[in-house]
């Protein structure tokens, strides 16, 4: 077991890669009641075309299957794993993103038992036709719930505008139609391909004894028979650099309009340090342009174009990425054109000063300290970083290295109209 010290942060991280390929990380947190553990596979909604285990040909699976599988993994022949967790005083949950499916529990006692339950239930699938059918009703209601949610529609609408072919444009839960094609055989095919330990990461954070926990995990895995797995073959379609659509307007049953502007990212094939730096530079750039202390935000607010729902965010994974800016507004067209203007102005070489950059970096450092108070943040983000060969604890040193030139050169490359797209939600007439 390897121990990594982060002196400035006063944290210690323990790591081991097991013989079957599973990566295990343990971060002891003294003084906390809660232990939080996530067991994550590098498999999400975008992985819809791949070569199944022990086969040669690519298959394309129904939309929403990674999420469906996440729901179904909780059900076993003798009942529901949720029940077992709550009998052990824990609360369990799971989520599916574009690139990951995570299973988790949090508990303040019986950590060993709960950890055993977590690992075992994820590694013991049980799917039957009957329970697959029943789940279609529940997930159908989940999909319908999101259909009525204007912020979700706006978010996905914008991704659909930006991406022409890439499966990131497909709603994570799929549609009621697409999930109707899901069968237990499809679920097993996906499970067998993506839930091998070598494609997974286990993270435990809480008031735990690292040696003891690691031994428990080693023993648990040694009992199970996994054959070595070849690398998973996933296929993604060609995707143009520019946005697929300029604009989309959704009419919904709302009183306030909403407007988001998206930018299709560049450098989406990076990993490791390079990716970390690019991602942080992008975050700093957005902060400089739109942070609460920026002159742009102040002007937009003074002009009544934005309110407190205004936000901005950057997402980057292997193969896709986008920035989004916007919120509720009284004048979605006016806001869209102002946002576009502001983004293009970032290309100007004198757009930012050293002082502003220092402040933005300080702000991010403080935000990082705040974030690592949270066991959930540490486990979830660490896993995401690790899947992209980055290290969460490199955030502060990497931030410190960002120069004004880095920010300007990213803005110079990125801020092109053809990468922009707008999505709006407006009240139905």
């Amino acid at each position, binding site marked *: 077991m390897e121990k990594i010290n982060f002196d400035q942060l006063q944290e210690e991280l323990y790591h081991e890669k097991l013989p079957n390929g599973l990566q295990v990380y343990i971060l002891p947190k003294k003084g906390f009641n809660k232990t939080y553990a996530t067991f994550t596979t590098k498999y999400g909604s975008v992985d819809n075309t791949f070569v199944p285990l022990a086969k040669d040909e690519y298959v394309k699976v129904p939309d929403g299957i990674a999420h469906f599988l996440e729901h179904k993994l909780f059900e076993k022949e003798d009942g529901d794993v949720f029940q077992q967790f709550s009998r052990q005083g824990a609360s369990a949950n799971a989520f599916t993103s574009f690139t990951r499916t995570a299973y988790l529990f949090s508990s*303040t006692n019986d950590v060993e038992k709960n950890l055993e339950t977590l690992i075992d239930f994820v590694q013991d699938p049980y799917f039957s036709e009957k329970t697959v059918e029943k789940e279609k009703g529940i997930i159908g209601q989940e999909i319908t719930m999101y*259909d*009525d949610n204007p912020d979700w529609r706006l978010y996905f609408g914008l991704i659909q505008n930006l991406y022409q072919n890439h499966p990131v444009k497909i709603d994570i839960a799929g549609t009621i139609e697409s999930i109707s094609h899901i069968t237990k055989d499809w679920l097993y095919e996906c499970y067998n391909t993506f839930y091998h330990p070598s494609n997974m990461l286990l993270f435990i954070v809480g008031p735990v004894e690292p040696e003891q926990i690691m031994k428990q995990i080693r023993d648990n895995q040694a009992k199970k028979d996994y054959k070595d797995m070849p690398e998973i073959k996933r296929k993604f379609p060609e995707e143009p650099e520019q946005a697929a659509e300029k604009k989309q307007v959704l009419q919904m049953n709302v009183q306030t309009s909403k407007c988001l502007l998206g930018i299709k990212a560049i450098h989406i094939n990076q990993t490791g340090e390079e990716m970390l730096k690019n991602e942080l530079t992008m975050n700093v750039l957005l902060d400089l342009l739109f942070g609460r202390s920026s002159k742009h935000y102040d002007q937009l607010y003074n002009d009544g174009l934005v*309110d*407190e729902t205004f936000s901005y965010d950057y997402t980057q994974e292997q193969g896709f990425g986008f920035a989004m800016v916007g919120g509720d507004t009284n004048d979605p067209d006016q806001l869209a054109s102002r946002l576009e203007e502001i983004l293009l102005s970032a290309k100007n070489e004198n757009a930012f000063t050293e002082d502003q950059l220092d402040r933005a970096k300080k702000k991010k450092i403080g935000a990082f300290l705040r974030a690592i*108070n949270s066991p959930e943040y540490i486990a979830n983000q660490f896993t995401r970083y690790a899947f992209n060969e980055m290290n969460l604890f490199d955030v502060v040193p990497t931030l410190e290295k960002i120069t004004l030139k880095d920010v300007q050169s990213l803005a110079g490359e990125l801020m092109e109209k053809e990468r922009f797209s707008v999505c709006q939600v407006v009240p*139905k007439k």
Partner: protein
Amino acid sequence: MTAPEEKISEMQGYKLHVVETAKYKTNTIVWRMKSPLTKDDVTKRALLPQVMQANSAKHPTTPELRSYLDDLYGATLYVDLAKKGEYHVISFLIEIANEKFLSDHNPLLKKGFELLAEILTKPNVSGHAFDKDTVEKEKRTQKQRIQSVFDDKMRYSNIRLIEEMCKGEPYSLQVNGEAEAVDAITPENLYEYYQKAFQEDEMDLYVVGDVKEEDVKKLASELLQFNHRTPKKAVSEEIQKKQEVHEVKEEQEIKQGKLNIGYRTNIVYGEPEYFTLQVFNGIFGGFSHSKLFINVREKASLAYYAASRLESHKGLMMVMSGIESKNYEKAVGIIYEQMEAMKKGDFTDQELEQTKAVIQNQILETIDTAKGLIEVLYHNVVACTEIQLETWISEMQKATKEEIVKVANKIELDTIYFLTGMEAGK
């Protein structure tokens, strides 16, 4: 269990609550002020903290104030409004990095305190009025904030249930006030209200982090002094018992119907039966092993969510679920059956034990975050009690089946609110 110790001191005009803990990388400072909810004041009172946090005398524009926060390693400053029983509670929150994790050893806690004092006591005022431009901008945002509730159907239906259920009671007022009342607010009358609030409200200051009580006390006594006051109590009005269940249906163009059912529990925080009520709620609809989740979602496949939650200081329990409109009768039927089962004691020892274990887990998890801890501790201020966390947990653990059945039989169905799609029945 790691139970943090809360040290309380009487200060000039407010109470100081300090929790010393080395768990966090940041320090959290929360200023709370509460006053009885009234129709006359609610809108003004909701606007006030928004105007106060927009800028100050020393930092008279928002970019200036926000740049200063960025300089303090991205300290966060925001306000929050809540209804706790018949009280309207304003919170100012500052979270600031602990400099021991930074290479720069600027005394950040002190700076955070000074900033809080500045926001609370030295607002951007000229004469006897708040800055006019700031008030106008915040009035506009306030209206949007009130209006935006309509667009989130889950929140909307929950608010509509309470409006229908608590008609005539202060609790039916919305936390952000009423859109129609915003226009009448002026920089002058808002300033007048500011002075009144700081004269009369019950005020509490919480500080959680790797701090020393004496340091905090010194900072607080230097920077924050107000006149002494006797806090006003909310007058709890006699609730009109409804003869029949009040049923309200509203149509909107939506795909999923929102079913919200309100019950009167007739038990509030601070009463001995409250702990039993928590266990009741857990078995009935609080968790994923609860009767509502199992029967509405898992067995009948009618919904993605089906849950109940308590309004502890008002004595309400609210059930909520998202269903297809055509399944209304079916879902209501299943929910009624679960309540009947509870009243008859139709639940197992395992359900009981499981629920206690999960509640204990939930409490301990909540107090792992500074904000969660403050939230839990503040219950005592609202209810004028001094219930320790340990008591909370041990009393809850003692709840017996007989006691739960007794509590169940005190619970009365009051109002059913259903927000239905236009194409109901199709």
